């Protein structure tokens, strides 16, 4: 009996290593954290077929929404760590711990590839009486609470960018909640809100068509897509403390996935991210392609988490202190 069991476990072990060697032997599931048609969805559907080709396997993507993406993350963490379930997500999980939305974040997973980073900017309704950050801050100071700013919930891009601004300048706004930057930018064009911090890619087409105007670029460098717009650090130098900062998209697997499998996936996504179609798509939308993995990705994720967590905590809308999770102050 004992020898039988030993034989069985031996069989299982060799089976296991054989599995890693010819990974993938079956369909891989890609769980997209956000809904169909959103930016995470678009990015993942654009890069994954190229990665699948490089991998020589099949990656089937499905959207699993809810709980600001926490439901998808929890689902992936509940599966086996065999590399057959990938999480395709955005930056949100890095805030789960301080906002009390979940117990795990990306530091509890293995990054396969952090594909790209977005640049935030401030856009305003065309009729707004300010054209730059300096003018905007002046106006907001003179009329406290009058400017209606779109927001996408605590922990979202808008809340963090606004936390940076209120950390630097003593300003007050009325924050009107929207469920996503798409609906908020629509409302901006209709005049329901005055200003909206949004990722460049989401607003660029509206800006090009003259339906809204850019009043600030939240980066340290000028951007090719926005000629004539100065980086925010030239108007409010204090922003340099937080920048470069921006939402990102990445592919992750559960911790404990065999190293060979992780390496194969990393190689495949690195290859996929080199595809010219993908790069063109990302550049058109104003995303900066990063395609990083390993320690480089971990450092980036960690820096995002520490900057954002402390900003949110100091602005007073965290549920728990970043100290509880040993998140160092930047």
């Amino acid at each position, binding site marked *: 009996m004992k020898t039988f069991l030993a034989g069985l476990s031996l069989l299982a072990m060799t089976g296991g290593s054989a599995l890693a060697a010819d990974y993938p032997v079956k369909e891989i599931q890609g769980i997209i954290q956000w809904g169909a048609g959103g930016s995470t969805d678009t990015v993942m559907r654009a890069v994954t077929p190229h990665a699948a080709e490089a991998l020589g396997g099949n990656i089937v993507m499905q*959207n699993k929404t809810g709980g600001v993406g926490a439901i998808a993350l929890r689902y992936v963490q509940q599966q086996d760590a065999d590399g057959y379930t990938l999480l395709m997500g955005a930056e949100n999980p890095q805030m789960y711990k301080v906002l009390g939305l979940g117990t795990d974040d990306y530091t509890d997973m293995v990054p396969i590839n952090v594909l790209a980073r977005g640049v935030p900017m401030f856009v305003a309704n065309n009729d707004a009486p300010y054209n730059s950050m300096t003018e905007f801050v002046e106006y907001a100071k003179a009329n406290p609470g009058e400017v209606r700013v779109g927001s996408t919930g605590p922990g979202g891009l808008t809340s963090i960018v606004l936390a940076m601004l209120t950390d630097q300048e003593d300003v007050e706004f*009325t924050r009107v909640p929207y469920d996503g930057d798409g609906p908020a930018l629509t409302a901006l064009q209709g005049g329901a809100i005055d200003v909206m911090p949004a990722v460049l890619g989401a607003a660029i087409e509206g800006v090009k068509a003259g339906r809204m105007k850019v009043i600030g670029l939240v980066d340290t460098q000028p951007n090719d897509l926005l000629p004539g717009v100065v980086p925010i650090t030239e108007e409010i130098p204090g922003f340099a403390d937080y920048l470069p900062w921006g939402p990102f998209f990445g592919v992750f697997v559960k911790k404990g996935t065999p190293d060979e499998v992780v390496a194969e996936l990393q190689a495949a996504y690195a290859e996929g991210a080199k595809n010219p179609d993908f790069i063109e798509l990302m550049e058109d939308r104003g995303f900066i392609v990063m395609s990083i993995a390993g320690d480089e990705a971990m450092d980036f994720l960690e820096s995002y988490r520490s900057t954002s967590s402390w900003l949110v905590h100091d602005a007073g809308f965290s549920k728990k202190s970043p100290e509880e999770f040993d998140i160092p102050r930047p």
Partner: protein
Amino acid sequence: MDTLLALLTVFTQPQLFLLVGLGTFLGVYIGAIPGLSVTMAVSILISFTFSWDVYPAISLMVGIYMGGVYGGSRTAILLNIPGAPSAIATAMDGYPMAQRGEAGEAIGVTTVMSFFGGLVGIAVLALAAPFVAEFALTFQPRDYMLLAVLGILLVGSLSAGSLLKGIFAGALGIAIGAVGRDPLTFAERFTFDFQIMEGGISFIAVMIGMFGISEALLQLHHVGAEAMRQKIDRIVPSWSTVRKYLPLSLQTSSIGVIIGALPGTGGDIAALMAYDHAKRVTKKPTRPFGTGAMEGLVAPETANNAAVGGAFVPMMTLGIPGDAVTAIMIGALFIHGLNPGPMLMVDQPQMFWFIVGALLTANVFILICGLTGIKLFTKIVEMPRAVLIPLIMLLSVVGAYAVNNSVTDVYWMLGFGVFGYFMRHYGYPLGPVILGVILSRLLDDNWRRAIISEREDLGAFSAGIFGSPLSLTLLLVVVAIFVSQTPVYAMLKSRISKRAADQA
């Protein structure tokens, strides 16, 4: 000339023409199966058509979209199970017709009227897209809120029997819609600290359970009964029938286009509003509403198909999705290297005209797919119940799972199925529950947005409503409909007619 060529692209390239046809055909069946939604089909197609050119990919998606919206009516009429939320109103008069053995006629009229509604939607898209889009943009949060209030007043038309029970059902629906993390602040509501409740309750799961499972359970009462034989000799409606409903369908199509074009409302609300409108304006329906009135079938079906054209209006002119499906199509355009946005119409007008052409083609295919194969479909109702009931159960489970690939949704669906069965048993209408769930977020989110933007000042909020012609009009409509449902209105009416009689 270029415009005409772009419009005719679909017709001149047999491959594209066939893809639209194939899409429409698939769409009709996907739409007919509760839970298999067009939204899902189109998002799967994005990966599937990844390596294709943009025209064939869009052709297939447009076909599926158009076909799917129409297909939802099939199961609504035949089984009393709406295949999609936009077919809920269709079931109210469609199913009673099938029970009388008139399923063939009902499907025939639905098909022709869907075609007509689709045509109105496409015409508005082609001729007036920029104006309609600008109009849609002027809707402020307070206007969306008033629209939701208007929607809630539909409870009156959706409750056969006791209005009180209808109001209860509607309130229940609104409460169900509020469960989960509030998407605006992420605060938990009605979750009782259960992780499972955090994501909210999928409204599709509620719908499939309430209509699918409860219907199957109800049918168990007559499991041995002989199925109704369906008359299928009169499928294509006569010209005089079509002409009779033309004025009504023109009105309901207009409702469909506008509601469809508003970002944030779609075919489901349009169809329910159109049903309500038909009930108000029709003096002499073919039969009382709720028992198989043709008008009750025509109104929602024209409106939901007209809403398709409407949904493309903000998408094509501004890059703003009119509903969930157009949101995915915007993603598809991105992946294929286009930049949907306000500049698309300027830089690539041929894309706009190509989509108009594809929609037209899909609309024609609806007529073809819809009027053929009815015989086969009506056979479904004639199936022995011992086969039909398990089949409904199976489809309901698959459908509920497929919405978000979540087993939790299946449990919700089953729970609401059993609950819906008892509700029906005690004479509580199910329509208002679904109405409540659909409108819950529209009302809640926009009320909060409206009042927050006025810095929580009720005075400024009212001033905003009275200061804007659009808001004021919506408010007056709300008041008028509300008053017309109270005894005050009947009293006034009789007094006025009496005075008129006295003067005469």
